[in-house]
């Protein structure tokens, strides 16, 4: 039992299951998934579909946080990506031209790569603290997004573009397919290839990594670039879903939700080991929370309250100091181990 509790996915899974149970209790057919017009429908599908952008952003954020960094600029990148793509498409003679949309998407993703590389450059080469380095783009980025759209909300009518965030393919929402593909790609890069090991090594012990021959600066630039790319794709999704780009409000606070998802998923803000599945769980918890608030009939405005509650609970449960001071105090007979040990114990005991 204690082994199970110590598993870092234990609490997130428990909370997700709890939220699901609440939904099942309050909503009829919550678990039902049906096929209508060749498309999958159902509450669970909706959670995935609406949660897709957050999962993407959180995915990139996971890798950044694993290197002991943070990226505050993702929300702005979301806005910039949506703005640029929509602007390019609205300039097309035929908004339904597939090549035109592909070109717009290509240019947009290229721009997000540049933005990510900029963050990586500031962190890795100039040596600015990540939170400050990315604050610059966070502040300026919203301005850039509005500059691109000239302060207007750009509305488009393009069915190929609509596919990204709102369309279906092979009965599944296309956005879910994108997420699956990107998660698979990330898992491949980090777990099948050696990128994950480098990231964890740099986040775990930067000096030892350097002395082992890892190019830590390169790793940092790659990670920040990847994070911006994920945010860019999420930006495409969000703008595609509503067929418009709003430089001011698109992706507002998504960086906070993403960081939250990562932390809930058990990746420490202090860097090192990261868990992609944990992050996806975290993002799903946040999305399910929103759904739950709707379904149990609480006014939707209070979602933020519940979010605050969940953040506090999860972070307290994961804080060694909290366990030491509150949990251990009640279970007095346990030998008083030095503070950091509780987290440092191996996950499995033999």
């Amino acid at each position, binding site marked *: 039992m204690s082994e199970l509790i110590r598993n870092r996915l234990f609490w997130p899974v428990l909370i997700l299951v709890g939220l699901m149970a609440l939904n099942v209790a309050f909503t009829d057919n919550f678990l039902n998934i049906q096929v209508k017009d060749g498309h999958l429908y159902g509450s669970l599908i909706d959670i995935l579909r609406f949660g897709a952008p957050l999962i993407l952003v959180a995915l990139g954020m996971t890798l950044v946080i694993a290197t002991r960094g943070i990226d505050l600029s993702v929300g702005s990148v979301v806005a910039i990506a949506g703005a640029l793509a929509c602007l390019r498409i609205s300039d097309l003679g035929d908004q339904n031209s597939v090549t035109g949309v592909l070109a717009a998407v290509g240019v947009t993703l290229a721009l997000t790569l540049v933005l990510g590389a900029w963050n990586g450059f500031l962190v890795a080469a100039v040596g600015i603290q990540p939170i400050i380095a990315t604050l610059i783009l966070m502040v300026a980025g919203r301005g850039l997004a509005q500059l691109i759209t000239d302060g207007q909300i750009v509305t488009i009518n393009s069915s190929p573009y609509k596919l990204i965030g709102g369309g279906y393919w092979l009965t599944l929402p296309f956005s879910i397919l994108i997420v699956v593909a990107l998660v698979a790609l990330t898992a491949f*890069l980090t777990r*099948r*290839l*050696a*990128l994950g*090991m*480098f990231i*964890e*090594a740099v986040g*775990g*012990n930067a*000096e*030892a*990594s*350097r*002395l*082992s*021959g*890892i*190019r830590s600066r390169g*790793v940092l630039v790659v990670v920040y670039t990847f994070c911006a790319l994920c945010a860019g794709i999420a930006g495409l999704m969000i703008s595609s879903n509503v067929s418009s780009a709003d430089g001011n409000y698109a992706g507002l606070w998504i960086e906070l939700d993403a960081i939250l998802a990562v932390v809930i998923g058990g990746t420490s803000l202090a860097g*090192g*080991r990261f868990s992609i599945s944990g992050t996806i769980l975290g993002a799903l918890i946040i999305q399910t929370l929103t759904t739950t608030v709707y379904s149990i009939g609480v006014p939707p405005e209070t979602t933020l309250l519940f979010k605050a509650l969940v953040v506090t609970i999860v972070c307290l449960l994961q804080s060694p100091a909290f366990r030491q001071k509150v949990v251990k105090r009640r279970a007095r007979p346990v030998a008083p181990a030095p503070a950091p040990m509780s987290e*440092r114990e*191996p996950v499995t005991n*033999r």
Partner: protein
Amino acid sequence: MAESAPIVRMSGIVKQFPGARALDGVDFRLLPGEVHALMGENGAGKSTLIKVLTGVHPVDEGEIELAGRPVAFSGPLAAQQAGISTVYQEVNLCGNLSVAENIFVGREPRKFGRIRWREVYRRADELLDRFDLDVDVSAPLSSCSLAVQQMVAIARAVDVEAKVLILDEPTSSLDADEVAQLFRVMRRLKEQGIAILFVSHFLDQIYEVADRITVLRNGRLVGEYLTRELPQVYLVAKMIGRELAELEKLEGKPLARTTEPLIEARDLGRAGAVNPFTLTIREGEVVGLAGLLGSGRTEIARLLFGADHAGGGSVHMGGKKVTLRSPRAAMNHKIAFCSENRREEGLVDELTVRENIVLALQADRGWSRPVSARKADELVRKYVAALNIKGDPDEPVRTLSGGNQQKVLLARWLIMEPRLLILDEPTRGIDVGAKAEIQRLVVELSDGGMAVLFISAELDEVLRLSHKVGVLRDRTLVAQLDNDDALTTDTLMGKIASGAPS
């Protein structure tokens, strides 16, 4: 010499850490108005003794008395309030505050709750005046030299009515003038009756300022001596000791190699780390570096691995000049380096044993060409068996004992099949069995043609393994001696102590 009653008396101190007995029945006393040097190599128990005295660690056995009364401090703060102040090598002050504030912060002179800055500056000036320090007390501390920072830390400590002042390696980053300045201050404090516990690795400094010396070795008390009655060479012998019995003898004495030079360092140096040195390492040759901690032995290793940038000089391999700009560059030239600081510069704690073993190989291959699981398994199995690593390869490396961690680090670099392997204190803090295994490994590797730069504080070990020994003293490579029958630990000690053959 008439002795007053000791201000600090520690008797029968035992401190057990998981896997090691850091202090084993140590007695120690400190008299008012003396400078007392605490000497010993790494792992001798100096810092543990200080930490026990200042309440960082509780004692397992034994008693501590301050001015005749038994005490047990809850922490450095409590010790400080009782009159025992510690100044560490890395100054524990706030660099962003002014010099004066650092002395008075938390106890500034006030009037109706308002800090009287004039008074703060005036008193800080007065205090530092007594130390013969001419600094702008309103300047931020970080703008001052390290020596001044240390002096300010001492001033703060003394002004809090210290009876005992512990100086833990205060001189390691100071230049000669700064050291002289520090010593002036220490003498002045001594005259005021303050007891000073002084830790330093520089023998000359000890003999210049200390009245009395206590030597520790492997957690045990070797003895307490008056400085003037203990010649340097005896001190070195007492610190280093001899560990003959447990280690099996290796066959014969290694003979000097006449193979091709593998790597030549010419006037390589780095300001503040090690003075320019010239050193040739031949293929299949084991070159030992002997010297006390802080003598520049680690710095030589780091320069040869590209971990630090050299300030001057050049490195040649196979007759051609090479630039070792980074560890990667050194790795491309088949150079490997096991740092003495396993925890901070070697292993990545959170990663598994397996990942730590293949880390360098993977770094060399790049992220896109992963070491296949089969290859990794094979390598890990091979080296776990060859080096006798005890532990589960899939557990985080931090769960292993020190000796096994050291072997993991060794395995990481042996996989790379280096031509030059730099080992910085590979046998420190590990048990005798593992020690013997690592020594045997070094012999095997060099017989196989690998060059090894072997750094160790234990002269026996250096002598047993090396074909050639470089002796370091005060950041200078003072001698390079072929390991023939004439070379004994005594000659080495003489070199280390005086810089000249004894």
